[in-house]
């Protein structure tokens, strides 16, 4: 009868308790499943989140993901519903909309673009009461752009603030 092979021990290799390993394995599997479930809920990126703010003069709505990941394409949609005349509807975008993001397109193209204290000002001209302006911007995320940044959006009439939405954009690695 063959003896127990060298370097094997019945206690360690036959009658071993698996409790610790089982707990560790199921914990890791549970974490991986939890991450997948959280992703299904749209927490880790790309699902558009809408924010809106309304004042007497206009309503501003922004639809865009608040979480994105490196390399992803995403869209920002900015809707302005004018209730009073606006001489020069201007969207003011915080640097989070620009920093290390490729802007593939802006439709419609703004009549004027300018930097205003580090923010990007896009001017679209006059809006009459009841008129709607919808601006689409298409982005792609630079993979090295990890972190959370301000992605505020302001609606201005020229230099006069009408309404501002506070948002952040988080880029996950």
């Amino acid at each position, binding site marked *: 009868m063959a003896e*127990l092979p060298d370097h094997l021990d019945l206690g360690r290799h036959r009658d071993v308790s698996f409790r610790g390993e089982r707990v560790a394995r199921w914990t*890791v*599997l549970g974490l991986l499943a939890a991450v997948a479930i959280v992703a299904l809920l749209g927490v880790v990126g790309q699902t558009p989140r809408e924010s809106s703010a309304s004042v007497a003069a206009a309503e501003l709505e922004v639809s865009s993901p608040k979480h994105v990941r490196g390399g992803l394409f995403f869209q920002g949609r900015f809707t302005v519903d004018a209730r009073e005349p606006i001489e020069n509807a201007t969207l003011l975008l915080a640097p989070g909309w620009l920093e290390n993001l490729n802007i593939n397109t802006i439709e419609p193209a703004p009549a004027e673009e300018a930097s205003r204290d580090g923010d990007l000002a896009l001017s679209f001209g006059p809006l009459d009461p009841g008129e709607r302006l919808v601006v689409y911007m298409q982005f792609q995320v630079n*993979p090295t752009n990890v972190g959370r940044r301000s992605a505020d959006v302001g609606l201005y009439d020229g230099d006069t603030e009408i309404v501002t939405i506070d948002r952040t954009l988080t880029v996950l690695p």
Partner: protein
Amino acid sequence: MDIVIRAFFAFLFVVVVTRVIGRRELSSLEPFDLILLIVLGDLIQQGVTQSDYSFTGLVLAGGTFTVLTVAVSFLVFRFRRMRPLFEPEPLILVDDGKVIDRNLRRERLTTEELAAEARLQQIASLSEVRWAVLESSGRISFIPR
């Protein structure tokens, strides 16, 4: 710098995933296991290099994986207590012709699969086996009576 950091965390992820998947799946390479490994490899590559198609990126990511692999190998060699973190211990599956069911269950192995492995080594019956050991590599050693 980012690619090295991503490679480091990808390596840790691979270590954890391979420990969770289990040694049998990694060594037996049944069709489904093979697909899993290929898909995992592709996903890991994308996550590490992302949009970097450069040779420099290859050197950075490949170099990081190589250094970490050697480092883990050295740690396991130098500090025996770390071994279970990276490599499973051998596990006895058959003792004197008797199949140890709880050890088989732990590795999600059936008696039929064990018998098939024995046949591959010209052993017709598990009753002829003195010891069967699932090695760290995932292969099964059979020592006849």
